[in-house]
């Protein structure tokens, strides 16, 4: 795979940069208007310089790596549990009867509400954050997969059956690719929920490392520049994953297969 930019990609990058610049200009105007004290709303050069310092001394990398580790483990668990369970729900009435009420009851509970409970059970540290991420990410994965499998064209199943596909082949070669537009949406939503959950979980349960922790810790010392720099790091990581990982996944699969339309560029 190459990372060279086509004219379309270049235009989309340019438009993205433009909208970011506009927002930055708006922020800068307010920050310099004197409406908030500069300590609380530092101008962009101050934030940028803090960003540079914490990036180069390695602390921010360490924070980001700690958070990313928790996100990826929890999110990975959600994918491994959510996709098969969603498929089983859609294929077997009994699994659906069992899982659906459970999901309906658990889903409305905010993942952060579990943090105190998990701290009592597992103490402060990675376990709590990972479990909270897992909890937050599982439901979008599960429900999207469930919908996706139910929306698989019955003609594909008939055709595959007529060609001698057994249950195993149906699962891997028809149902999973057939449900892939929904599964990819599920993966995206799950990842998003995972980030939202991890920042909160770290604020409450992490000690010393993690982007969520650093933001809430910075509040104690009125380090608004550090808070904003950390938020920027979260944004950058999220953007990179969306564009590089999920965007690529989508281009290589459902877009190439014509199962979804490309966003208007």
């Amino acid at each position, binding site marked *: 795979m190459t990372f060279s930019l086509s004219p379309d990609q270049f235009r989309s990058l340019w438009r993205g940069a433009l909208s970011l610049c506009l927002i930055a200009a708006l922020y800068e105007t307010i920050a310099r208007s004197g409406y908030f004290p500069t300590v609380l709303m530092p101008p962009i050069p101050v934030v940028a310089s803090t960003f540079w310092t914490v990036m180069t001394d390695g602390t921010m990398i360490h924070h980001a790596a700690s958070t990313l580790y928790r996100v990826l483990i929890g999110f990975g668990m959600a994918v491994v549990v959510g996709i098969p369970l969603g498929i089983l729900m859609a294929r077997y009435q009994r699994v659906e009867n069992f899982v659906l009420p459970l999901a309906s009851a658990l889903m409305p509970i905010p993942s952060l509400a579990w943090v105190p409970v998990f701290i009592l059970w597992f103490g402060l540290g990675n376990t709590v954050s990972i479990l909270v991420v897992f909890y937050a990410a599982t439901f979008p994965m599960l429900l999207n997969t469930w919908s996706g499998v139910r929306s698989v*064209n019955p*003609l*594909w199943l*008939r*055709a*595959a*059956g*007529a*060609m*001698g*596909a*057994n249950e195993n*082949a149906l699962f891997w*070669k*028809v149902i999973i*690719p*057939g449900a*892939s537009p929904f599964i990819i949406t599920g993966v995206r939503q799950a990842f998003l929920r995972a980030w939202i959950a991890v920042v909160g979980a770290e604020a409450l349960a992490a000690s010393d490392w993690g982007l969520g922790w650093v933001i809430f810790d910075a509040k104690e010392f009125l380090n608004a520049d550090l808070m904003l720099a950390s938020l920027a790091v979260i944004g950058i990581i999220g953007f990179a994953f969306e564009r590089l990982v999920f965007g690529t996944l989508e281009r290589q*699969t459902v877009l*190439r*297969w*014509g*199962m979804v339309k490309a966003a208007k560029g």
Partner: protein
Amino acid sequence: MPEIEVKDVSLVYDTPMGRVVGVQNANFVLEKSQFLCLLGPSGCGKSTLLNIIAGFLTPTTGQILIGGKPVRGQGTDRGVVFQDFAQLFPWRTALGNVAFGLEMKGVPKAEREEIALKQLELVKLAKFANSYPHHLSGGMQQRVAIARALAYNPAVLLMDEPFAALDAMTRDDMQRLLADVWKETGKTIVYVTHNVAEAVYLGDRVIVMTPHPGTVKAEIPITLQRPREALSVQFLDQQKHLLSQLGQHAEAA
């Protein structure tokens, strides 16, 4: 031994509005390499009967024999082509679609791709082997579907109005192509259609069905010489004859 035997087949649906007879007491036999058209208006049970032969539906009474063996569910002794273009797997190339049945049989990759390519040549699509279905026209997609249903070498090809959703000109081309494919492969074909001219063009025999309940009304041999000329007097006479069997006026053609 006949290739297909349909013996006293009936199918009754239980619906919220009561029992509906889909197919009533259908009987016929089909010899190897014969081309049979099931002709009738919508609701006459022709597709239902095809789905029973395919094993997608279980008849309420009676049975189907393929090569002397009773049908129980789907089986690779039958290839099926549907009307809907969406029957192809969008995530597989034309070649990947055609190779699917062979893959299920456990044929090694190189060998199944070679066979699949031959099948695509048969339907004149070898050039598009690596295209995904969404890049192919409706007619091309249906040709891939035919190649796919033939690739694992079933004894019987079952086709449910495969060209009904195509424009008239493409449909004519496809009928010619199917007649060629049939001549080349010698498959036994059951072909469902509501198009009288299509039945006369393709069939060795036409079974006329009428609705409410779905019944076999008549069985008519078509003895016109092949390749058939759709504008010949004999061809038009056959069409009139079929239309009268359907209880419609000849002008309706």
